[in-house]
């Protein structure tokens, strides 16, 4: 997991870790940061992609299943997501944000596009809320204990932060994030004024950020 999102720190860490990687062959790729692995992927090192896959495939697939409600189709999105990482890693800029933010955005957009191509309407938001607030405790054998622990911790922290949001605010950001609905579509679906949707989205993200910072969330 990436320990920090500070752009300067990330950049410095990449350089330091790259130097370490080149000078110490016995250092396992599992210990390298996402950003260093992404740089290795950009150089065409497939083992780095495999490591990133092991770290985030279950999360990416979770997002895809959440959006598509179809695991087989979501598995296709999973493959395509990491294929895009393989082909586009050079375009990733650590200064612009975390690797996971970039990775999950690719997965989300692919899943939403695939979902729309299948012309399936989103599930009603009321169904989503109640069913998706549970974490899958099934251990992933490809992940090491530290990664599994970090993933569980992240999941718990985010769910806790989301739980602090008023239902209507949470609903707006989930409709936007998981279903790719525009603000106008959300206003139409909820029957609320566009200005109200703007306010709910802004307040929801502000609250979510504050809660995650308070819990010292690390992506």
């Amino acid at each position, binding site marked *: 997991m990436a320990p920090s999102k500070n752009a300067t720190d990330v950049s410095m860490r990449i350089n330091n870790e790259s130097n370490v990687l080149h000078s110490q062959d016995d250092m396992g790729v599992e210990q390298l940061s996402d950003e260093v692995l992404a740089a290795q992927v950009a150089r065409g090192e497939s083992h780095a992609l495999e490591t990133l896959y092991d770290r985030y495939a279950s999360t990416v697939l979770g997002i895809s299943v959440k959006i598509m409600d179809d695991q087989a189709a979501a598995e296709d999105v999973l493959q395509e997501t990491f294929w895009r990482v393989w082909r586009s890693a050079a375009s990733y800029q650590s200064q612009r944000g975390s690797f996971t933010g970039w990775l999950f955005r690719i997965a989300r957009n692919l899943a939403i596009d695939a979902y729309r191509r299948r012309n399936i309407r989103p599930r009603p938001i009321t169904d989503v809320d109640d069913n998706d607030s549970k974490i899958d405790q099934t251990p992933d054998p490809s992940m090491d204990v530290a990664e599994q622990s970090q993933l569980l911790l992240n999941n718990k922290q985010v769910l806790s932060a989301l739980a602090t949001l008023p239902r209507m605010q949470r609903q707006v950001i989930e409709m936007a994030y998981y279903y790719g609905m525009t603000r106008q579509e959300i206003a139409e679906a909820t029957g609320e004024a566009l200005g109200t949707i703007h306010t709910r989205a802004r307040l929801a*993200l502000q609250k*979510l950020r504050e809660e995650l910072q308070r819990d010292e969330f690390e992506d």
Partner: protein
Amino acid sequence: MDKQIEELLSFYALDALNDEEKELVEAYLKEHPEARPQVEEMGNAVSALAYAVPPVDPSPRSKEALMRRVAADQRAASVTRNQHSQSRELKAGNIFQAFSMAVAIVAIVWAVILNTQLGQLRNEVLTLRNAIVAQASSLEQINQSVDQINAKLPQEIPSAVLTISLKGTDVQPQAQGQLIVDPNSESAVLVIAGLDQLEAGKTYQVWLIDGGTPVSAGLLTVDENGQGVFIVTSEEAIGSFNALGISIEPEGGSPQPTGDIVVLSEL
């Protein structure tokens, strides 16, 4: 901050804007970089939403399929790199090959030209040799002819052939001629020109004069131009006479000169 942009920022962070709205926000952020940290903070919060969903274990086949695809891509990239490398080498090789080919062609053309020139020179040498041989042959023939002529000269050519100029007298001063004579011989060749045409019944008669006594050497006939060639004959050597004269005589000639003397010269 612009009210419209502020309303869009949350949905920009959620990646839920249409393209037009997205461009609007990005243009704003480009002009107002001070707003970017706010957007990045919202973006971090949005990224965390990925962890809110239950993770789902992927099928091992997904990873296998992905890595097969990656391996195939690596092989293709390797082939492409090799092709590019080979292409570059081939390109360099082609340039060298083309240069070598050009040099070879120039050398071949030059060799052909030299060979042609050499052939021409050989032909010229051969022609000159033939010419030399021919000239040598001709020279030999000439020498042989000269030798033959020299061998014949003592018998056929008089030892002292003289050419004596003949002049007309006051009667026909335009007349002139030459007498080619070996004084030891009894004959000589008289070539005369400028003599007048004679009236009918008249003829020119040639006289060899020895001490005042003319001896007829024969009758001379001239053409319409007054020219004539006459073989002078005598019973004695021409050199024994001291003058030659031509007179106008009645047709058939005279035993002694009777008419005007038109040519008279000492021998």
